[in-house]
């Protein structure tokens, strides 16, 4: 019969003509989610290596940091209590606010260890919230930089203008509250010069504070907050102001006062004449004078070293602990007999 013809024709009938517009997704490793990949797994070896490595890195750093901190010699003297008359807060405030009383206060410091120059002089304020919300906002950066914008005092509440309406420059609470205690140092009869140049950031002097912007109407108000400024010196050279305007992060902070570029020997006695003008008595703030050398890590602070030693030690401990765990309870990785349906066939 037509056997062969039939089968061929049936064949041709069954095979559809090749589709021109097939919707079949084009194959690519990306669309099929088969991109080559690294599949990290926390194998015992990896875990122990990581912990050991961290320990190996952290312990030496911790030791170095502690050593650096120990090398720093620091003299801290709290003078706000000694340099005041009066017992109650009101008496103290009245004393400090009285312009006629003498604010001079003489203290002596003993050098505990040899201090190599440069020796940094800081003042430290406690309990002074330079990060208080209404305080940090009260400034105008445009005014400080640009002499044309001297009248721009927006954002400077409540120190925008003098009572007669003329704009204050530099305006705002921050500038208004500029720290104004002064220190002069001497050893025996010999004065120690304090170099106050270069205590602020160069970037601030160059770009944030204009060299043709001069203070105006500053501290002319009803209430004086702190230091006055010499109106003939441009802002870019008023380094105390520049330092002060870099508001501190925390309520206890230090600000650079100057540098003593002279070595100090152990047991030398330094006499400091302090002009104790700044009013921290109204809010029970402390004032301290700090003389400190520095290290690669900054000032004296044991925390970093201790923290690194702790973390490093902990990592060594964890490395050991994990080794013990791996030895006590060995588990073959990827062993299917641990799969829940193999391990516990009667249910889960």
């Amino acid at each position, binding site marked *: 019969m037509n056997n062969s*013809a*039939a089968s061929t*024709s*049936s064949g041709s*009938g069954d095979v559809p003509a090749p589709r021109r517009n097939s919707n*079949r*997704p084009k*194959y690519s490793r990306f*669309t*099929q*989610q088969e*991109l*080559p*990949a690294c*599949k990290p*797994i*926390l194998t015992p070896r990896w875990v122990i290596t990581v912990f050991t490595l*961290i320990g190996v890195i952290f312990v030496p750093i911790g030791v170095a940091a502690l050593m650096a901190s120990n090398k720093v010699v620091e003299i801290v003297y709290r003078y706000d209590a000694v340099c005041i008359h009066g017992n109650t807060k009101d008496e103290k405030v009245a004393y400090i606010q009285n312009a006629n009383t003498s604010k001079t206060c003489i203290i002596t410091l003993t050098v505990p260890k040899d201090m190599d120059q440069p020796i940094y002089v800081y003042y*430290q304020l406690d309990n*002074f*919230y330079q*990060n208080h*919300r*209404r*305080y*940090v906002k009260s*400034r105008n950066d445009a005014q400080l930089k640009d002499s044309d914008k001297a009248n721009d005092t927006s954002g400077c509440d*409540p120190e925008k203008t003098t*009572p*007669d309406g003329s704009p204050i420059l530099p305006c705002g609470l921050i500038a*208004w*509250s500029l720290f104004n205690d002064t220190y002069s140092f001497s050893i025996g009869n010999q004065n120690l010069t304090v170099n106050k140049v270069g205590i602020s950031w160069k970037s601030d002097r160059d*770009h944030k504070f204009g060299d043709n912007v001069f203070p105006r109407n500053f501290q002319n108000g009803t209430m004086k907050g*702190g230091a006055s400024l010499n109106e003939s010196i441009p802002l870019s050279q008023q380094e105390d102001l520049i330092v002060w305007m*870099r508001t*501190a*992060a*925390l309520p206890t902070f*230090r*600000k650079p006062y100057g540098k003593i570029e002279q070595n100090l020997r152990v047991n030398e006695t330094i006499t400091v004449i302090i002009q104790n003008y700044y009013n921290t008595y*109204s*809010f029970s703030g402390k004032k301290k004078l700090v003389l400190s050398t520095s290290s690669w*890590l*900054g000032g004296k*602070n044991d*925390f970093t070293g201790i*923290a690194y030693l702790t*973390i490093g030690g902990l990592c060594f401990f*964890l490395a050991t602990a994990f080794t013990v*765990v791996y030895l006590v309870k060995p*588990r073959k990785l*990827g062993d*299917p*007999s*641990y*799969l*829940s349906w193999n391990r516990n*066939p*009667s*249910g889960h």
Partner: protein
Amino acid sequence: MAGDGLTISREEEEEEEERSLAPLPSSGRHHRRKSSASAASRDGFPNPAHVRHLSRTETERLASSQRELADSNSRIVFIGDPGGSDPRFETPRNSIRTAKYSPITFLPRNLFEQFRRLSYIYFLAIVILNQLPQLAVFGRGASALPLAFVLLVTAVKDAYEDWRRHRSDRIENNRAASVLDPQSGRFLSKRWKEVRVGEVLKVLANESIPCDMVLLATSDPTGVAYIQTINLDGESNLKTRYAKQETMSRPPGEDHPVDSAGVIRCEQPNRNIYGFLGNMEVDGKRVSLGPANIILRGCELKNTAWVIGVAVYTGSETKVMLNSSGAPSKRSRLETRMNRETLLLSAILIALCSVVAICNGIWLGNHSDDLELAQFFRKRDYSDGDDKKYNYSGIGTQVFFAFLMSVIVFQIMIPISLYISMELVRLGQAYFMVRDANLYDESSNSRFQCRALNINEDLGQIKYVFSDKTGTLTENKMEFQCASIRGVDYSGGRVSSRDNGEAHYILAAGKQILKPKMSVKTDPELVRLLKNKGDTEQGKRAREFFLALACCNTIVPLVVDTSDPKQKLIDYQGESPDEQALAYAAASYGFVLIERTSGHIIIDVLGNRQRYDVLGLHEFDSDRKRMSVIVCGPDKTINLFVKGADNSMFGIIQNKVDLSMIDATKANLHAYSSLGLRTLVVGMRELSRKEFEEWQSAYENANTSLMGRGKLLRAVASNVERELHILGASGIEDKLQEGVPEAIESMRQAGIKVWVLTGDKQETAISIGFSCKLLTEAMTQIVINCNSEESCRNKLQDAVAMYRKFAVISPDPFENALTGTGSTKVSMALIIDGISLVYILKTKLEEELFKVATACDVVLCCRVAPLQKAGIVSLIKSRTDDMTLAIGDGANDVSMIQTADVGIGISGQEGRQAVMASDFAMGQFRFLVPLLLVHGHWNYQRMAYMILYNFYRNAVFVFILFWYVLYTAYTLTTAITEWSTVLYSIVYTALPTIVVGVLDKDLSRKTLMKYPQLYRSGQRDERYNLKLFTLTMMDAVWQSVATFYIPYLAYRQSTVDVSSLGDLWILAVVILVNIHLATDVFRWYWITHVAVWGCIGATLICVIIIDCIWTLPGYWAIFKIMGTGLFWLCLLGVIVAGMLPHFSVKALKEYLMPSDIQIAREMDKFRRINAATMEIQMNRFSMLQL
């Protein structure tokens, strides 16, 4: 969407019931389609042209017998007179507009839509709060930036989509249509958008139809037109439509001016694509119009040279436009769960804010005396000369302000970026799902479709799968397998693997060779019997049997050209796959249906062409469950051929026949249905002239009666269908889709319960259950098919007692290890039918059914109506937390698909209703396995991690801000600049989590497919739960403590300024959270590397840029602090100290308490897959021996 899908399903419901009650597959199928096309009644009469149209309208399924067209509620269309059409209602032009926005309305409408999300309102409220001068924590620009960014991204996305819609609208609207010009009487070209209701249009072959039109005339003298509705409902079969004879004779146009043309009254526009109701007044005569007289926009004209019609619905009123709407909106479970945690976070947020506010109040109270003079506070403002309080109005107000300000500062505790990240991640996941070559279906050339974009992750948590049977588990491609003639079984074709060449009938017509498109394996003995012209009773009956199969149907044979010019194929176009299968079977046995015209059919009977006049056709209906034709053969005998369901057929057989033959047939039928075949019985009766005339007059009367025609016709049919000779029965295989048994087995192992809900009868359902491995011999079957509430209750109680009994029997670990069900009971299967469900669902018995059904491993519901399907889904949904998935392909599955948590449509043989209502659509049932096990698992895992991570990373940041606030006299100063605060969640840390959310894979596809049990981690909520959330939050608190306090302690009593320390904190936290993410990434692609390390780099660059702006107080701070050793030591210390707990716990947990996923990951990594399988088999083997 939900609305319109339901509308249609309601309409289908009634018919579905019929189908499910009627095991007559052919008519059932046919019937189901009937409503859509109603094309099938090709009855013939001695005077076909005259009677046909009357009868046709009458046999419409949605016949208007019940619904009368109220004049007040109808649309009046004057044919050829667009101006006069229905003055009461403004009808739109034919332009369509799928675009949502216009350039003017875009902004307000898009914003309005976006702000319907509650979370956006929250963020908007915060932005507004921040604008108040008292509360301005951030600069105005900075505070609005995140919200603006999110809004912008969404708006750009929407705008792009809308622009594409605009473009396609424009193309669509400017297509050309030829419209009759009433003046000249000629057809002129006009753009689609200018077509108006009442205008007369001409459409040529292969053109798209511009609007919904009532047919007036076609190129075919009998008024037939063929259309393809693939764009409308996805069915590729040609549908027939008819022009009314009254208008056919004088089509409007050059010869017949339209001045006296008629008036059409029809329904108001509605979205039912399977229904149309109207009438037409022509020359004073009123003729009724039905769905068969209307062609719809979106269809294409095929095999017809031209048609002329009058536009009745245009533009937005066309049925296709009324039916088009977006994807259904559902909410994923993860997102619902996430809302719970969001509430928790809100509580934490409020707690933090309260702490800040209260502390602020206490501080102010303690220092109330000091603040007059304190330089950093200065309560008074002297600048205006008078003494007034500056920005201070009492402790109470300050506390209140502090609270609101802390809400502003800590706002990102509720992660705004999470919402946009989730959308982007889902988009990415959808991209990969759509493009997955494993989800591409070759046969239908269809890709996977993501219609809903917000429930991707639900796919990883499915516990119950509700599946339709026909078209979902099975292919809905019917294949004739067995015949039983006079009780003799001919199943040779089924077993013989050899392709029987003799079966292919080649018809030579001149030089042309005609051949059926598909052939059926034939039984050699039966072929011999037919060939043998000997007039044995058996041979005669066999011939009559196949003759009945060839003519008792509504198939249209189409002759198709092939590549070989001499050869042509006969393609049987029909609406029911069963009928096609029967027609192809008849053709294979030599009874080839060659031609069908309106009044007669031509059948090639074993080489002789014979003409049969079709005198009458009785459609299938649910009462009779059978169909019949009355034909007049070449020998002028008038025969009635009937085919129908066994129970309906055996009721009307001749009483005198020998019972043994009936019993043998019944036995064969039982055997067939046990094999999973769909059965049907064929009978015939010779009508005497007198009987015929009686029938004919009754038929004419019924047809011409105005009221209740359908009922009368049914009565006429029942009257004539009696005293039949049973010729035999056929068995048609409903072929299983590829890979169904394997897919079901995988899902069973994955802990997914598969329930099959079908309209088929119980035996068929059970046999399909066996053939797809859903049921096994080891299972105890509980069958519930009762006719009263009482008996249902008893059965259910028995079942409860039974499973209690089994539950106490000690479990068989081996069995469970094999099946992987992990249950402790003997596996049971519940088989329940629709009638019982009527008594159970929505009554007190529901609870009992729930208990029994959940105790069973398999549930089979047979003969269920569409709403019952939905009822079963909600039975589970309302009582458990378990996720449900419904999968189906037909309109009868729509309600189920919409009820279930996840609805999947099979884009297959049946219409597109299921796909339109679904959340996802795909080509094959077996794709469910990669979809759930692979993509679902990935999606769930990724999304769960991403949500947790976003919570964590924002919490770390908020806590760092909070710790700092404790050292600022509780005044909400932030050391970190406001820009960094704002950019933190949208730039510094956003990209890696999105990349990981889209790309990360915990396990390879191969492993997931190999161990379906891994899917259970999603069902158990292993990746996102309250415990994990709590742990993550504790980790967040620790990391914030480490990040804040290490620099704090290191820089205590130093000269550090606020900006430098802020820069250190922001860098530390960004690096820390990115490293945290890095330790959790499973797979590192180059993209992941770029995202994670790039993000850290980008952060550094941003911080540097911010610190290069001289107007900000932090100018140059980053360079200053980066120049010191302490900065780097702090950074390193923060990262290591912050990561230590996370890393240690992770390492310990992965080692000591490994999850299945972890072990599989290790297997994945060390490529032990093959070895592992061996081991499992070995284990089993050893257990066997034990």
